[in-house]
Every structure is written in structure tokens, then in C-alpha cells.
């Protein structure tokens, strides 16, 4: 398949939306701590946001890997 003709499948797109939501929530938690640092916002911005961001990046990189394999680049 030529690289430009590759269309991500529906499942890949759904996972991308999930990753985008995780990513947005993580960034909002970080912004909350940047605006007002308290023990609770610190815990969420470092702990919960870290987990969400790791999950979002993991999903994104899995999607990239799947795309590259389908295009026979990997």
C-alpha cells in the first residue's frame, strides 16, 4: 500500500480518541496545579496525570506502530 493511501481503521481512530481524552485530562490536571499548588492538586498533577499521560502516549505509539506495519515500513 502506498504510504499516502493508508487510512487508519475505525478501531485505531477510536483508540486515538481515547488517547486524546486521557491526554486532555492529564494536561488539565497539570494546569490546575500550575494555577494553584496544593497537596491535592500536586498529587493529581504528578500521580494521576503521569499515569494518564503514560497511557495516552502508549496508545498513540501503538497506533503509530500499527500504521507503520500496515504500510510495511516496520
Amino acid at each position, binding site marked *: 500500500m502506498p504510504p499516502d493511501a493508508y487510512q487508519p481503521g475505525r478501531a485505531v481512530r477510536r483508540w486515538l480518541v481515547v488517547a486524546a481524552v486521557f491526554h486532555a485530562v492529564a494536561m488539565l490536571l*497539570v494546569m490546575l496545579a500550575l494555577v494553584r499548588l496544593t497537596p491535592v492538586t500536586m*498529587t493529581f498533577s504528578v500521580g494521576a496525570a503521569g499515569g494518564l499521560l503514560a497511557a495516552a*502516549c502508549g496508545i498513540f505509539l501503538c497506533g503509530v506502530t500499527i500504521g507503520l506495519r500496515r504500510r510495511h515500513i516496520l
Partner: protein
Amino acid sequence: MTDEPGFAAIRIAAFVACLAAIGLVARATLAQRSGPMEPAHRWMLLIGFVVLAPLAYLLNAGLAISGAKSVAFCNSCHVMHGYVKDLQDPDSEHLAAQHFQYRWINDHQCYTCHSDYGLFGDVDAKIAGLRHVWFYTLGGYELPLKIRGTYDNQRCLVCHAPVKSYQEIAEHEKNAATIATSATSCIGGACHVAPHPKAAARGESADAS
């Protein structure tokens, strides 16, 4: 909460990185619902997920870990208001207030006396902080507040032990071994005054500030 010099710029940079990351990822995700993915959208996702978001996260984590040492941070829990109020009282004769008022400890006064020195001192302090957050927000706590375990005299000795005026006191020399192991406390008895008012531990002045 006041920033240390230079931290305001880092805070703004992290905030802008957060907004940019959300914008790029949202734009690429919403715009690319069908058809082949455009290269520009691929780059937006890559920069949003892998560059800007981790950058913003790390900047915030650095600011948060540094900011968590401030007295204002400790005072953000209302149960600490009584302690900090006494700390800031120029007429207070409690040990912590004296250290604060005379700047015997220049900055981060709560953290300096309530975290251990050495490699794992900061790590232990962060774990203790997580425990405090849990009990304060979900688990509940009992009044009067009590320090967990025995206060480690090494936190005092790091500054005081090398000082000649400390070494010249006969009691310090006589009890050196038990002071070093914290078997004999620096506080109470015929030694030094209490670090904090008892009313603060009972939460009586918690609503005052």
C-alpha cells in the same frame, strides 16, 4: 503562594505547553475523522503527545516538588493554620517560631525540620506527604495531631552539633550518645521549649487564618 526567582517564567511556559498540546491533539483528532491521515495531522499528534505533554508534565513536576517545600504549601491544609499562625507570630516563644522569626532557617522552615537529610530524606518526605493527603482528604485524622514515630534529633544536630556554643554545654556532652540516637529528645523536660503550641495540635486556632 510566591514563586522563587525564575519560576514564574517556567510556570507560564508549562501552562502554554499544556494549552498547545491540548490544541494540537484535539485539532488533529477532530479534523481527521475519515480518509487518509494528512502528514500535518500526524506531526500535530506526535508533537502534542510525545513532545509538549511530557515537557509540560516534567516542568510542572519540578515546580510542584520545589513548591511543596514552602511554608505556604503546608498552610494550604486548614489543619496546619494554627501551626503557621504561631510561626508567624513575632511574640511567640515556641521553638519553631523562633527559628522562623530570626531566620535561623532561611527558607522552607516546615520542610527543613520535618524531612530527613541524606539521599532518601526527600523521598521519605514525599511518601509522608502522600500519607498526609490521604488522611486529610479521605481517611480522616484524630485530634490532637501527633508526630508519627519519634522525632529524629539528627535534624537538629545537622546545624547545631558543629556549633561551639552547643558543644560547650555539659548536658549535651553527657547525653551525646542518647541525643544522637533520639533516645533523649531535644524538646521537653528540662531541655528546650515545645516547637509548636498545644492549641495548634488540637486544631483550636485552625480557623484563625
